[in-house]
């Protein structure tokens, strides 16, 4: 069932010696401030995709240092997003058709330092281009649920699937597929799925963009009934088209009482090309979704390409790739967006983030600034992928959560000739999930 991928001995040796050279100085630093990142080899720079452990304490001398790196010499495309399961297992979705979903084998060496022992690709039964993962319990059973933007074939013009996995064995239990061309006119469909969020027996999945970033763009979210694992409603989320594309809903967050005490469950959706955040009310008594409504307009506010939702105990954070900011809101005021402070000025492509404390106890947020290595086509930069705007700063910026001050920046492209595709806490706050 499971296809194992073993990496070259050479890679292992190289990373081993990296660990050994760094661990002695690392012994006393706080582990919470180490992150695990997915790095992307860049065109013409002759670098490989990899997964790496990076020191991110801005107060430490080794800030920005790669402590261990595990390279994938034979993948055309990098891994995409990292997620910890509730039992502490680390997973990654992947953009390469050879490895659309993987489990990362983490262990500890005799000095206590974390080590990446390997990466095992999981059999997805043909589903390609993994995006998001959530773990959810329905009617007493735990599931691992994964969106595959290219579904059962990147060649399909309206593809996309949701894989339901056994969270223990990683085996596919079922595949939810409902291509527009195969369902009846007006019936709910799943196309280019990306964002996932669930509450009780209802899951919302977005329709974003064809995995080749060219064939088509979505403009809706679809509700899945998790009792039957079937799509039951597709809701259009679209208004202005500031760049002439469909709205491209990307991440979704089902706000629920476990996130905000006492809240009426509500769905938030970011539209990548609509530049908006939408709110869809949910009536739990009859399980119906209300009229979607724009609660944030990037056209009005001067931002574009909103991406992720993250939260801590007091705030909700939303990243906007253009101009590279993270906006912050009071958690207790949700579902109204009430600002809780000035924007965090990150970098072009502001995207994923993690929260931790520095050695001296300062609470910080680290923001990864890059979306798919997309650059402005007009720049004629051979190291990026042409797009309408530059959203690939390839940095991680670290900001003081209280003052918002930018404390430190590591630019992976300048320092390592690689892009930065994703960041996740290594341990500690890493078990906080962002959907």
């Amino acid at each position, binding site marked *: 069932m499971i296809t194992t991928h073993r990496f070259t001995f050479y890679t292992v040796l190289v990373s081993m010696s990296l660990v*050994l050279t760094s661990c002695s100085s690392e012994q006393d630093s706080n582990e919470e401030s180490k992150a695990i990142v997915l790095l992307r080899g860049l065109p013409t720079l002759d670098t490989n995709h990899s997964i790496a452990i990076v020191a991110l304490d801005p107060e430490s001398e080794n800030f920005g240092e790669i402590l261990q790196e595990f390279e994938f010499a034979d993948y055309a495309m990098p891994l995409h997003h990292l997620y910890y399961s509730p039992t502490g297992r680390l997973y990654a979705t992947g953009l390469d058709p050879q490895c659309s979903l993987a489990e990362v084998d983490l262990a*500890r060496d005799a000095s*206590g*330092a974390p080590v990446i022992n390997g990466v095992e690709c999981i059999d997805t039964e043909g589903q390609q281009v993994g995006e998001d993962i959530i773990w959810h319990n329905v009617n007493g059973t735990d599931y691992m649920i994964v969106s595959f933007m290219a579904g059962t074939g990147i060649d399909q013009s309206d593809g996309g699937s949701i894989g339901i996995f056994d969270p223990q064995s990683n085996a596919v239990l079922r595949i939810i597929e409902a291509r527009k061309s195969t369902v009846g006119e007006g019936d709910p469909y799943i196309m280019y799925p990306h964002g996932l969020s669930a509450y009780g027996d209802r899951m919302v999945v977005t329709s974003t963009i064809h995995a080749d970033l060219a064939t088509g763009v979505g403009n809706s979210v679809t509700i899945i009934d998790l009792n039957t694992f079937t799509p039951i409603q597709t809701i259009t989320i679209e208004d202005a088209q500031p760049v002439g594309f469909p709205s491209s809903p990307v991440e979704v967050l089902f706000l629920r009482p476990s996130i905000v005490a006492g809240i009426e469950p509500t769905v938030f959706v970011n539209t990548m090309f609509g530049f908006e955040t939408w709110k869809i009310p949910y009536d739990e008594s009859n399980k119906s979704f209300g009229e979607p409504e724009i609660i944030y307009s990037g056209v009005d506010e001067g931002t574009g390409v909103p991406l992720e939702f993250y939260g801590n105990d007091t705030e909700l954070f939303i990243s906007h790739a253009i101009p590279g900011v993270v906006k912050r809101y009071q958690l207790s005021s949700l579902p109204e967006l009430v600002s809780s402070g000035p924007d965090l000025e990150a970098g072009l492509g502001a995207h994923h983030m993690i929260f931790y404390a520095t050695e001296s106890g300062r609470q910080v947020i680290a923001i990864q600034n890059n979306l798919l290595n997309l650059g402005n086509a007009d720049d004629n930069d051979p190291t990026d992928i042409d797009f309408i705007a530059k959203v690939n700063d390839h940095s991680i910026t670290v900001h003081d959560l209280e003052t918002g001050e930018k404390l430190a920046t590591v630019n992976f492209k300048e320092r390592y000739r690689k892009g930065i595709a994703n960041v996740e806490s290594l341990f500690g706050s890493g078990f906080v999930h962002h959907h």
Partner: protein
Amino acid sequence: MLNRLVKKTLSISAIVIAIIVLGGFAYIEIGSNRATPITDFSAPFVFGQFRVPEDNPLTDEAVELGRRLFYDVRLSGNNEVSCATCHRQQLAFTDGRQTAIGVSGKALALNSMSLANLMWGPRHFFWNGRVTSLEEQALVPIQHADEMDQSLAELVDELKADSQYKSLFSVAYGRITNENIAKALASFQRTLISSDSKYDKYLRGEATLTEQENLGRKLFVAHPDVKASLRGGNCIDCHSQFLTSGFNTLYDGFSNNGLDSEEDLLPGLEEVTQIRAHRGLFKVPTLRNIALTAPYMHDGRFATLEQVLDHYNEGIKMSSTLSPLIAEADNSTKGVVTQASLNLTEHEKTAIIAFLHTLTDRQFIAEEKFSNPFD
């Protein structure tokens, strides 16, 4: 001529360095001796970071030496008691007695503690946390009149007379000293890692829990929240999720879990910190292999896990230092609370006990590397 010699030396040292690097640093220097960094080591990622003292890195030789010392009755004054007398592998390194008995034959005041996963959890050892390293801990029972009653000077002389110990010490540490005896015992104990229970296999995705065990697991990790209809046993508030031991920051791993009322509280952690609010606080022990380590609590007052669950469910004694986590945890939906109680059902208590049984690690108690080398 001189030039060529220098070049040659340089290239030889380059080769030597290359060999060392390529060999994965096969040798490290400790004092004047060469010991091998531990070869067969792995620890679960989820247990978290641990620290090995820089002046006592884990080496194969130190661990082997420590294992011998741990099982050697010569460490006691009457040559009858070893560490393993009170820390038996088949009982997950406890002794099955209410309170331990050593050379004097007199019952000690306290219950012997399990020795598993000692690199994690509170960085303080003993029930009251009075020592802060395994090195410091090791010499305590040796000299204790009721435990092993051995003078360290005598012990060093005894070991020096043994050629096998001489050579083991020489490779591992150099000389035979009190300090090196302690270091070796600490090294062996650091390798006592229990991570192959059914629960570990569940965490790794290699096993599934039964419905009852899984209910127990969920109750173990949940703090009850009546408003959200969440039932919980609250255990994780003190016994951390993966290790089941107490937390490691400062004294977070110590608490008063309601065993005694105010007038009967023993000093506990207060003895160490001299802080009144620490009266009656004891180290939160690991629950790994708990089904093997009866009787329970610092004084071994409970013979069974049923009694332990009854305690948490309906036997909590109030005192000024009772943990607020226990005082406020309640699953009851009705009325005024007069007595701290979890109000779990029989069915739920049994489920938690079933979960506790998944913490038994048969591999750990059978592991050859941890067993008596004199057998």
